[in-house]
């Protein structure tokens, strides 16, 4: 499911082995103001809708210009998994050539310059949104990372199908 198709990036929701898409489902629920992660998320239905519009507009900007809105709107997680940020919700993503190939983009130098980190140049033109989660601490929870990795593997596998 395409989120934004621009001059620089094609941003899509990653697809799992069973053809489900965690981020597509998440965005559908948020757009309807019906996202309930099981715990208090602090977002009222109208806030969820606003969040969705803002996220869509941010993806559109990234796809069209090749750069995020501002430096603090994205973050590097681990092993080529990155995240887009808005409020305390995070959407993880990875990059691929669209044919099942993925070379992790790891920017080891960016962390010391948190406030002014540049958007890396090495991303492939397809960005796949793997998972969405609510940030609760300084580091992304291990289970969210593991899930994002799993979705990435299954999405790449999906692309490799003849």
């Amino acid at each position, binding site marked *: 499911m395409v989120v934004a198709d621009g001059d620089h990036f094609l941003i899509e*929701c990653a697809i799992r082995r069973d053809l489900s898409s965690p981020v597509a489902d998440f965005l559908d629920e948020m757009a309807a103001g019906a996202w309930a992660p099981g715990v208090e998320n602090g977002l009222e239905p109208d806030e969820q809708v606003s969040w969705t519009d803002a996220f869509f507009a941010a993806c559109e900007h990234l796809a069209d210009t090749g750069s995020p809105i501002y430096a603090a709107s994205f973050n590097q997680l681990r092993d080529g998994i990155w995240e887009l940020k808005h409020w305390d919700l995070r959407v993880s993503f990875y990059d691929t050539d669209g044919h099942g190939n993925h070379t992790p983009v790891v920017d080891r130098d960016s962390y010391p310059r948190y406030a002014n980190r540049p958007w890396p140049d090495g991303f492939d033109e397809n960005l796949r949104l793997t998972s969405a989660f609510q940030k609760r601490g300084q580091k992304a929870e291990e289970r969210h990372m593991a899930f994002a990795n799993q979705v990435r593997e299954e999405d790449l596998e999906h692309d490799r199908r003849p």
Partner: protein
Amino acid sequence: MTDDRRPSLIELREETREGRLGMAAARGTVGAVALLNRAFAASGINQHELAERACVTDGRVSQVLNGDGNVRVSTLARFLRALGYHLRLSAVRAEPDVELLPVPRRRRRERVREQFRFVSVAACDYIGWDGVGSEMVVQVTRSHPSALGLKAETVLDLETGEVERPEPTAIASRWTLVSPSERVHVRR
């Protein structure tokens, strides 16, 4: 592989009026924050310096640059100005059957550039021409001051360069030339 036949999530969102309006608002905010960040990045200054220039706190600068909350047009204009830019707004068509936004066409006024010829010092309250503690009342006229019934202690003819001193005065010999410009401020 991508299924090209399906609309994107944004296109689906914009199938309703609420969705179109919501996306328009979000795009406006994103555009404003992105523009501000571009200007900030180009400036080479840090957030503290911007805070000083914009007369706000460091925290407010961080909040605005990070798109925290809705950025008002006035706030955007102030921050851009602090970075050395003017804000210009425009509207582009969102639908093909909407007319281009008309530009109001009104007859511009004709600015008449008056040619002044005479500079007359009508009243002086000064100590010397060096201007220390001085205030000079100057009248710039097209016709000779006497023709207008104006009393002048000293008259300079801009065309000939001649200085007339019909009355004995305490004016120093050095004449400070007044160059009338388009906007002439005359104290009465």
